């Protein structure tokens, strides 16, 4: 059994391509169905966020599996493979597992440590379960990924840094505006960090939120999520005066908010202060904006300066996180290896033999003075019972070893004969957090 990932994300593909390949929630049922019908795919899960579209699948053969999943993406979105193949990344086996663990732990995020991705991954997994696309292996794998993410979150300071940027942004806004009640936030562009900071602001009591984005649909979608108002990207500068706090994170290569725009906005709002947070790299807002009276501009470096201490330990923390991932990976790979026919049959036989031997010794201790013949009879009797008992399970396993239920049968057998590893199982409540 092999696990592969085929997908694209913020590192491999520009947003225009990511948007074309992304899966809307309404498409997911059909998509999971089609994925499972794909030749050689036994289990599947689709993770689609604004920064990544990744298809995780269990396949019989790596090479053909990768080709089939690529074809699936192309066919489903009606886009010729040549149009986006160069942006796809592919990994398999241990690399695929490591990739998933890194994604779950937010090490692969645009803003390392941002916590949203874990929630998105949990959603993706639940959707996949709902459409019965996740089987034994993905179940086990995702639970392992979630507990890895949890360990990374609690044992390293990776998460605290991203959270503290948005926390610092809110605290800073409070130092400018006093209370945030009744304040209005505008999101320019829709990066993960922006969304995260916006959530923090919403929890602090802001009144309204405007969202603008180069593609209007995405602005609409995000506005809906935050119960805000979408604004056309071509004329968002004219709405600027309504916002007290502006969070910007577009992929623009030049400044999109210039001092003139801000002076104009300030006039319209009678010089009421404005707080700009520019998370984009390269920056979206001309640094000269900070020179205007009653305007405060912080770029990503300024924000990180605010939480300097955390940033200092960042690379060390990432190293620690990779260490945790390596450990968890080892545990999972060990489990995956046992989930094979031969070790399972051997395990069942050994378990039977172990029980037989133990019980026989007990019985022989009672029955003193048995002749060697008598002992031999007892030996063959017990052996016969054990072999007959395990014969049918083993035949069933062998029969299903070639079909769709292979992993399920193996897993059930391992559980029934108590062959499962003694390592602690993650409780399911992990998912409901």
């Amino acid at each position, binding site marked *: 059994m092999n696990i592969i990932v085929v997908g694209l994300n913020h590192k491999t593909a520009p947003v225009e391509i990511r948007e074309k390949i992304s899966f809307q929630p309404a498409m997911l049922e059909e998509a999971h169905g089609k994925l499972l019908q794909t030749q050689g795919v036994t289990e599947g899960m689709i993770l689609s966020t604004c920064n990544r579209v990744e298809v995780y699948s269990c396949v019989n053969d790596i090479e053909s599996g990768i080709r089939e999943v690529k074809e699936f993406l192309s066919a489903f979105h009606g886009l010729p493979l040549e149009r986006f193949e160069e942006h796809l990344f592919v990994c398999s086996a241990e690399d695929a597992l490591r990739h998933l663990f890194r994604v779950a732990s937010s090490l692969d995020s645009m803003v390392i440590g941002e916590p949203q991705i874990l929630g998105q991954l949990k959603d993706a997994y639940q959707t996949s379960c709902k459409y019965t696309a996740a089987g034994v292996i993905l179940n086990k794998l995702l639970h392992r990924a979630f507990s890895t993410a949890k360990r990374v979150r609690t044992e390293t300071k990776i998460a605290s840094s991203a959270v503290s940027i948005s926390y610092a942004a809110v605290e*800073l806004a409070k*130092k*400018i*505006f006093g209370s945030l009640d009744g304040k209005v936030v505008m999101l320019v562009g829709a990066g993960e960090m922006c969304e995260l900071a916006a959530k923090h602001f919403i929890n602090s009591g802001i009144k309204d939120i405007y969202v603008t984005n180069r593609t209007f649909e995405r602005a609409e979608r995000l506005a809906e999520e935050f119960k805000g108002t979408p604004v056309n990207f071509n004329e968002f500068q004219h709405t600027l005066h309504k916002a007290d706090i502006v969070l910007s994170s577009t992929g623009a290569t030049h400044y999109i908010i210039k001092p003139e725009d801000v002076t104009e906005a300030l006039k319209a709002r*009678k010089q009421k*202060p404005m707080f700009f947070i520019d998370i984009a790299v390269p920056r979206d807002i001309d640094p000269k904006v900070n020179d205007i*009276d*009653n305007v405060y501009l912080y770029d990503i470096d*300024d924000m990180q300066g*605010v939480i300097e201490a955390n940033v200092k330990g960042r690379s060390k923390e990432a190293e620690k996180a990779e260490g945790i991932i390596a450990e968890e990976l080892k545990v999972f790979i060990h489990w995956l290896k046992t989930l094979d026919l031969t070790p399972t049959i051997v395990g069942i036989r050994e378990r039977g033999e172990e029980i037989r031997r133990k019980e026989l010794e007990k019985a022989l201790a009672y029955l003193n003075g048995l002749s060697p013949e008598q002992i031999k009879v007892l030996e063959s009797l017990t052996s016969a019972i054990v072999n007959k008992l395990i014969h049918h399970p083993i035949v069933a396993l062998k029969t299903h070893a070639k079909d769709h239920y292979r992993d399920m049968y193996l897993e059930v057998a391992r559980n029934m004969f108590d062959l499962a590893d003694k390592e602690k199982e993650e409780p399911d409540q992990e998912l409901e957090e």
Partner: protein
Amino acid sequence: MLFYITLFLYLAATSGYISYVITLKKPISILSTSILIASFVLHAAVISLRYPELGHPPFIGIETLSLLAWTIVGIYLLVEWRYKVYVLGSIVSPIAFILLLLTVIIPEGEIVVPPYLRSVWFPLHVGFAFLGNAIFSLACAAGIMYLIQERQVKGHHLGGIHKRLPSLDVLDEINEMCLFVGFPLMTFGIITGFIWSNAVWGTFWNLSPRAIFSLITWLLYATLLTGRLSVGWRGRRAAVLAITGFSIMIATYFVINIIWGGHAFK
């Protein structure tokens, strides 16, 4: 005796507020406020007990400093109750302490109350002017804090000072509130001054340096008020104007009132 207890309490409140600013521990701020309220009440007793002894209202000579201190503390307590800006207390209570201390340090000669100060308009004139001055002194203190805090936020230096100062918006709001309340009081002070002048000398306008500077200050605050209401002068500009206005007022008070001996009446 009561006087010295009051003086001591102001010193205690000062150290209380300052240690609050350093430690940021809530109980210390509550304790400091309680001490300041006690000083305020005792101070009121001191002023009213002194009144018969003096033989003249506490509006003239060195006694004015004591009254000024009391008014500032009273208004500060209102501001603190409304805006919870304990940092301001660490500026106000030492000022009250110093002003009160000055009344014992500066020797006062015999004061002969001239008959023109016995008019009913005089206490009204001075009363309004006092309240106005006290309020503008707080506007000035808030303005100074605003400039410091603005510098921290704009310069992206978010250290200890930044943490201890109130938000820019609160400081600007105090400035605004002081302007809205202080300006009418100051205006009343000037109008009653005119009436008093007319009642005593038969002329509304007295070309004394004191009167001229008061008018300049009034114009400055009037400009600030108009600017704030019409084009939204706020923040930095409002803070600078509040500081300038109060500096002129202080200069007028010390240079003209004390050194030249009050209004230079012809």
